[in-house]
Every structure is written in C-alpha cells, then in structure tokens.
C-alpha cells in the first residue's frame, strides 16, 4: 500500500433516532496521499459532511478505523493527541455562522494560537498578520474588523487563515465555496491551490459541484447514502465514468459550452430521489434509481473492486459489462 497521510477503513457512523437507526456512514474505506486533493462528492444527505466531522473528531465513529500519519484517531476527541488537532484542521461551509460575530478577526485568529501555545504574545500578532497576508487580505485593514463588516468571500478567507494558524498538513474543506457567488469562488479556489503548493498541504475537498471538482482535485470519490460508489483519479473519472450513479450525476450537470456537453454521458437520464437514510433499500442502495440494475442488485450489496489502477467501483452490473468487455477485447 502506498504511504498515505490519512486512511479511513470500514468507517461507520450510525445515529439512533426516534424513526430508527440512521446509517449516515456505512462502511467506507479510502485514503489520501500526502500533497493530494481528494474530492468527496455526493448529493445532500449522502453523508459527506458526517465523514468530515468524523475525521476531524466532532463525532466518535460507531466502528472502523481512522489513521492519520500512523496515529489511530478513531477514538473519542478527548483522547486524540493535541498535535493531531493542530495538524488536521477544517474549514466549514458557511463562514457567516462559523465565525463568531462578537469577536474581531484578531480575536478569532488568536484562539488557535493560544490553544496550541504558539509563540509569545508579541510573536502572535506578527503571526496573525502573516496569516492574513497569506490569504491575501491586507492585515492592518482587517485585523480589527468584525465578521459582519466584510464580504462572504473575505469571511471564508479568514476562516481559512484560522485553519492555517497551527501550520497544519491536512485541511478538510467542507463545501468551502458553495455559499459564495462564482466570481468570488474563483478567487478562493485559486488561493487554495496556491497555498497547497506553497505549504505542501493535503486536502479533503467536499462539494456537490462536479465541475468544480474537475478543476481542483486529483482524485474523486462519489458518495451515495453513506457508501462510496466510485473512486478514481480525476481525469480518468471524467473520461471513463463506470458507476451508473456517477453517470447520472454527470449527465445532470448544467454546463455552459458545447465542449462540456460532449463530455456528458448521453443515456443516463436522472430519475428518482435519494431515499431516506432510515430506510435504506436492501442490496445495493442505489438499485431503486438505477438504469442498469439486474436481479442481483436488490439482494446482495456489491463490493468495491479495482477495475483499473486506482479506479475502484462498487456495482454488479458495471463490473459484469466491464468483464465481458475485456473478454471480447
């Protein structure tokens, strides 16, 4: 196995509710190599955010392992070593609610520095200015402002600066731009890519926007109802999608040019809705919406199989056609 900075194995997170057991994450396995960007894509309710929250320690997993730099971190948050908390950081979706409105940006940025005992009081001010410069905000102008006085994109940059305060090597980005307009999104994304190169960061990038994913990540994982359907290197993923759900997603994206239109799979017309996670269909959870289903799909859940290097798919029908395709060739 290639060395990986984060590896998640057979992770499960179930929430007991009055309506029944919600299987928010149901046995997922993936790993991220250092310096890589893994894009995690799925519809709302597919468990993307729960995955991020488990990795960052907001929820203890029901079962399964999370390993970060050979350290087991799938335990309670209190027992997680402190340096891991500083090394593995998260940026949330909505900067409007993740930044405290009653604190100035200086106060917001000073908290991680204090908690992790970084520098003396004097050093900290310099570090905060450095952080703001890193995210391309003029430090002297912004340090004493409150979050409500700045725009959405700038708030997200402050949230990013806060995440970077402890010099992490891994940053979880939970839909960092979905609350923003496209013209602002471009700036944040370019900033993220530049910082990744300069600081040698590894990202787990969560989004529902596949076009964005195409431009940001090096690998893509598709999640559906708490399970992964397909993982592949980005270029391969967009050229040769295999899982029927992936094809459905790709064909549903609204695009703006003919060149993109040509990339979309023709036959996969979307239908149905994501079922309630309390009542997951038996067998493959996607079979109720699937266009390629056969008899086996309703009965047994397919396993993840590697079809090409680094390209994993979890689907009976696709594998059968893939195998027969190879036999003919």
């Amino acid at each position, binding site marked *: 196995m290639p060395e990986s900075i984060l590896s998640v194995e057979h992770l499960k997170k179930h929430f007991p509710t009055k309506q029944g057991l919600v299987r928010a994450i149901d046995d997922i396995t993936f790993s991220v190599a250092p310096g890589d960007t893994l894009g995690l894509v799925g519809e709302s309710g597919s468990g993307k955010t729960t995955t991020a929250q488990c990795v960052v320690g907001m929820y203890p997993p029901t079962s399964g392992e999370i390993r970060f730099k050979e350290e087991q971190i799938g335990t309670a948050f209190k027992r997680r070593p402190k340096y891991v908390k500083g090394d593995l950081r998260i940026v949330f979706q909505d900067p409007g609610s993740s930044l405290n409105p009653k604190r100035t940006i200086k106060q917001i940025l000073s908290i991680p520095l204090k908690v992790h005992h970084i520098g003396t009081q004097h050093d900290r001010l310099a570090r905060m200015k450095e952080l703001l410069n890193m995210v391309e905000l003029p430090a002297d102008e912004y340090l004493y402002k409150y979050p409500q006085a700045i725009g959405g994109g700038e708030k997200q940059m402050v949230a990013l600066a806060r995440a970077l305060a402890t010099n992490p090597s891994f940053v979880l980005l939970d839909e960092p731009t979905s609350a923003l307009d496209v013209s602002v999104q*471009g700036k944040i994304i370019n900033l993220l890519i530049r910082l990744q190169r300069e600081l040698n960061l590894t990202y787990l990038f969560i989004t529902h926007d*596949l076009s964005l994913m195409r431009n940001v990540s090096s690998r893509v994982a598709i999640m559906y109802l708490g399970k992964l359907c397909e993982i592949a290197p980005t270029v391969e993923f967009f050229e040769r999608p295999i899982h029927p759900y992936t094809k459905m997603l790709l064909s549903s994206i*609204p695009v703006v*040019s003919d060149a993109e239109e040509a990339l979309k799979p023709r036959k996969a017309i979307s239908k149905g*809705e994501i079922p309630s996670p309390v009542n997951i269909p038996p067998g493959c959870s996607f079979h109720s919406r699937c266009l390629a289903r056969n008899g086996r799909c309703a009965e047994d859940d397919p396993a993840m199989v590697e079809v090409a290097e680094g390209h994993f798919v979890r689907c009976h029908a696709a594998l059968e056609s893939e195998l027969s395709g190879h036999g003919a060739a």
Partner: protein
Amino acid sequence: MALLEAKDLHVGYRTFEGYLHVLNGVKIEVDEGERVGLVGETGCGKTTTVKTILRVLPMPPAQVQGGEILYRGEDVLRMSARAVRDLRRREITAIFQDPLQALNPMFTVGTQLRDILKDSMGGRDGGRLTKRDIEKRCIVALQETGMPDPERIMTNYPSQLSGGMRQRVCIAEALSREARLLLADEPTTNLDVTIQDQILRKLDELVDEKGTSVLMITHSMGVVRDLTQRLYVMYAGSMVETARTKELLACPRHPYTQGLMKSVPRLTGEGISEGIPGRIPNYLEPPSGCRFHPRCEHVMPVCKEAIPPFYAVDEDHFAACYLYRS
C-alpha cells in the same frame, strides 16, 4: 408588441441607514411564447425585479421611483388593485425559490391546489367548474409534473414531502391554470443536481406543451443554457448585456460577463480564473455612471459620468458598455 416590457425601472428601499438605490434602469422584454433568462449574482436585484413585476414588493420599505412595466401595453404599476389581482389570477404566474415558504404548512397540498384553481376560475365556488372537475384537474396537474401517486400527495402536508416533491407541487400550482407568463425565480437553487435536472426537464416539457412565455431568474449560467432562448445579464441593479443565450455564453462582450464566464468552473478542466476583483457595490452610495466601473479593467473617464446605454455589438447582441460606443 412585447408581452411584458419593463422600461427604465428604478426601485429602492428606505431603510434605517438610508436610501438603498437598488434597481437602476432595468429593462426587460419578453415576447409572446418566448423564454427569457435573467442571470446575476446574489444581491444584484433579480428578485426585486420579479417582485416589482408581480406588484408583491412590500411598500414601504420599497419605493418605485420611476419607470413602467407594460403587460400587453398596460402599465402594471398604475393598475388598480382589482386589475392586478385579475392579472395574477389569469395572466402571470410564478414559482419561487423556496417551496417551503411558498406553500402554507397548515394546509394539505390538495387544499392549496384546489384553492388556487377555484380562484383562477373567478369565484370562491369555482365558477363553472364542479367539485369533481376541480379534483380531476388538480390530479392531472400533479401528474404532469411527474409526481407518483398524486391522490396520496393531495392529502399530504408540505412538511411530509421532500424538497424536490415540494417544488413539483409549486410547479403544479403555477401551471395548473393557463397563464401566459411564468416567472420562475431560482426554482431549482435549493435542490440537488439530479433532482434539478428532472425538474428542469419537466418544466421545459410543460412550458413547451402549453406555450407559456417564461422569465427564468437564476444565478447559474448552466441552467439557462438549455431552457431559454434569450438571456439578460444583470449587475448591481441594471442590465449589462443581452443576446441569444448560446451566443452570449459562447462570446460574452461586457467586461462583467466576461469575468463571470471565466470564473465558471468547466467540466473540461482548464482551471478557474481569479474571478472579478472587488465586490458588488453598496446600494447606499452606488458608484456613479456605470456601476461596474470600480471593478472594471477597461475603465474610462466616461464610465464614471453616465450610465451607458445598450450598444449593439452584433446582430441581436447588446452590451451596456462604452467600449462598444463607436
């Protein structure tokens, strides 16, 4: 004559901090049977425009300062309350962004659909329609939107339905009476892509079938591409560009539209541009002249002085920018 024509519309809001100059000379034309898109970023006045057309803008705080909205030659802004009600009953219909706000949580889907049908037929008792007719038309309307099991849905409350289903109910409500003009204000923004795709396809079919004219408001360039024939791009309360949709998306002329199109992430993966520097202006003291000039890289002295009119840059392609003055 255009079905709907807004001319030089100026709308503002009186607030505690001062007067917000939001709409600054908006012009839109929708022809009979035509589908028009209106795109713009958050806070550029898209929803204010729609609400002004429907006359549902809360006044105060809003104030219409000038301009006219002609619906088949008649000015909506000067109509009597009764005439406006008739207009909303028979002629113009709307789908809003958030179906949870558009549907009343206290009544079943059936009750709400029936009420709308009865009202559009002209009286509380449903005019010339019998109870059974109304029931049948409601079910047909739900079926048309691709809803499974419409009889059961009729007895459900909005909270019992998923987001996609709720939006289908709203579409059924909007299209159940034969209106001539549909205003769709970000109808799929809250939905997942696969659901969005289904809803848009259904909407496309229904509109085609009924020959309704559409004004589709959205912030997503991709959504308007398949659904509309002509497109308006809006920035900070005024129109900056209009052309046939595909042409505008393929070759935008206004600097704002160009910046916007460059920052849309593409499936082909050529990377994303830096976006447009700066942000949308404060409506308390908007920039003089062209409101885009503080963010524009081609800014000229004249841009700061007067609002640019639409200049023809191509056949059927207009941009409100002094670059194309000659």
